[in-house]
């Protein structure tokens, strides 16, 4: 019991330190958007990849049943990509398995999540929240060269 309580305090300490020192916090971007006007609202009127500096990219995604736009992006290994995602219809998920890129995509809000792609390869990007009859085909690709 005492050991258990001590472990709880240790866990909480580790999590809090990681959050403050290393910025390990779950994606919590607060920015609203009209879900009925996504295709007219910049930058989501032209979704896709933008280079902001050497090795630094921003990627704007629109999630819409049952696909992501863009459906594929290509980046050099070692790039840090900040993803901005919003939904034009229902609740979606945005997950690149095993990388730690994982966020909900809620209509009315813009989600943000960043990741540095060190390894080369083709990564699968999936919708991991049920969005309708074709949910199982909602996927895209991230190619790291």
């Amino acid at each position: 019991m005492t050991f258990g309580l001590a472990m709880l305090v240790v866990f909480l300490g580790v999590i809090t330190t990681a959050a403050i020192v290393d910025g390990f916090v779950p994606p919590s971007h607060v920015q609203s958007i009209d879900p009925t006007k996504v295709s007219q609202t910049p930058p989501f009127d032209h979704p896709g990849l933008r280079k902001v500096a050497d090795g630094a990219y921003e990627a704007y995604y629109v999630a819409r049943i049952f696909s992501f736009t863009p459906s594929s992006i290509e980046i050099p290994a070692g790039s840090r990509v900040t993803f901005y995602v919003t939904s034009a219809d229902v609740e979606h998920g945005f997950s690149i398995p095993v990388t730690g890129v994982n966020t909900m995509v809620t209509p009315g809000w813009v989600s943000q999540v960043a990741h540095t792609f060190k390894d080369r390869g083709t990564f699968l990007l999936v919708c991991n929240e049920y969005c309708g009859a074709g949910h199982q085909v909602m996927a895209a690709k991230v190619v790291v060269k």
Partner: protein
Amino acid sequence: MATALGRARTADEALELSRAGGDLLVLTHVYTATLVLGIGALFGMLQGLSRANLIVMPASFDYYRTLTAHGVLMALVFTTFFITGLFTYSTYRTIPRVRSARLGWIGYCVMLVGTLMATVAILDGSATVLYTFYAPLKASPVFYFGATFLVLGTWCVAADIFLNVAWFKAHNPGKRIPLPAFLATCTMTMWIIATLGVVAEMGLLIPWSLGWTSGIDVGLTRMFFWYFGHPLVYFWIMAAYAIWYTLVPARFGGRIFSDGLTRLAFIMLLLLSTPVGLHHQYLDPGISAGWKWMHTVTTYGVVIPSFMTAFAIFATFEIAARKAGVRGFFKIVRWLPWKDPVFAGPALAMILFIFGGFGGIVNNSYSMDVLVHNTMWIVGHFHITVGGPAALTFIGATYGLVPALTGRKLFAPRLALVQVYTWFIGMSIMSVAMHWAGLLGSPRRTSDVSYFGAQGAATWHAHMLWAAAGGTIVAISVLMFIIVATGTYVANRRADVPPTFEFASTNEDALETPPVLDNLGRWGAVALGLAVLAYAGPVIQQINAHAYLAPGMRTW
């Protein structure tokens, strides 16, 4: 009922008739839960086979419809009918009173009507929105009304329990509320505070589904849902704990370790079950990281009463064994009545819950959640929590309740024993496979995860086969459960010496319980205050954001 009571000639006879009336109500709850578990398990097995690509669900009744039915029937209906029945039993049996069970029956009927409405909407395909019914997926109003009636029915059952406890307090001044009735009242108080979230959400969803409002604040409905969604889990767990604390010890001649500790653990669960829901929304946009961190802390707090429970239950085992002259860990383990399904069910459930608890601490770990959120890990987690500790405890308790309520011996007790062990094995296989697939990133709630043979998806299939195998074992186990539970009533006659299912008495050397613990009205008010404190900030942030409203959609 009233006329039967009117015919009673003596006070004892009136009490006897009243008790029989209450037993019928509880039995109806238990059998309803049993039937729902059977239907839910069938859908669950189909999903497992379908996800492993062993069968293909027809387009006219697809995977997501079975998934909605499975989730709603298991998480919301089976558990709720069993728990409200259990707590009615705890109250009626420990408060001797000539009573009318009318309010209890009204509650049952309202719950049943709600369940039927929601089930019809799900089966006819107009509510394929899963058990979380996230807007702006828009189900037919029948589904939302059904869910609301299910909740309102439970409020009637709660009111019946509260009125009985109030009667007891008025007629026994200065006496402690009997422990089982206390646990019932405490849990139902928590449940009412929690279900306020569903009612608030329905206040938004129902007018919108009827077409009276054109759009919905998606973030707000999600927040209301998860305000309810986590205490829902604690509703199951508190019911399982109530069985572990008060009913299980009597199976091996044990006594409740401490009356005061039990009450304190339940009050902590009452206080801390609700202000924690944001840990289900760690990955939601529109909610600041600070609020999420705050709910991480409170969620760790709610682990403490679980530690207390683990300690108290093991102490109960050890004290009883020592009294019987048995010492040493392995000897005590062997001494316990593993051949009694009423003991073995809950005891195996406790083992599963140790792993469920570990997984829960991982899920709650803030930044660590990104690795497992919405993956099969989560599905594995709640099958080893609700499917393990809660359901297996309820099954074991059913083997005690049905004979006690019907006066008949348990039908095929060996089959019952095989049933609880196969459940344990099947659930373990399934849950381990799901956890594993989740760590590899396999998404949950997806009918087919092959993604046209994409790289990365290939590693998931083997685990889905294991999950399907485990799920099939569980479904077979459920079939055995139904045979035993219904066979007891159908095939067996009333026994000469009616079987009993007794509440254990308290350890005689335990300390006196402080009277302040019995003041449940005050503790309920504190719990509500904490819930408001934890949620006022995030809800105000949500409303102040002037979030855009989303139109409803039917994407299935």
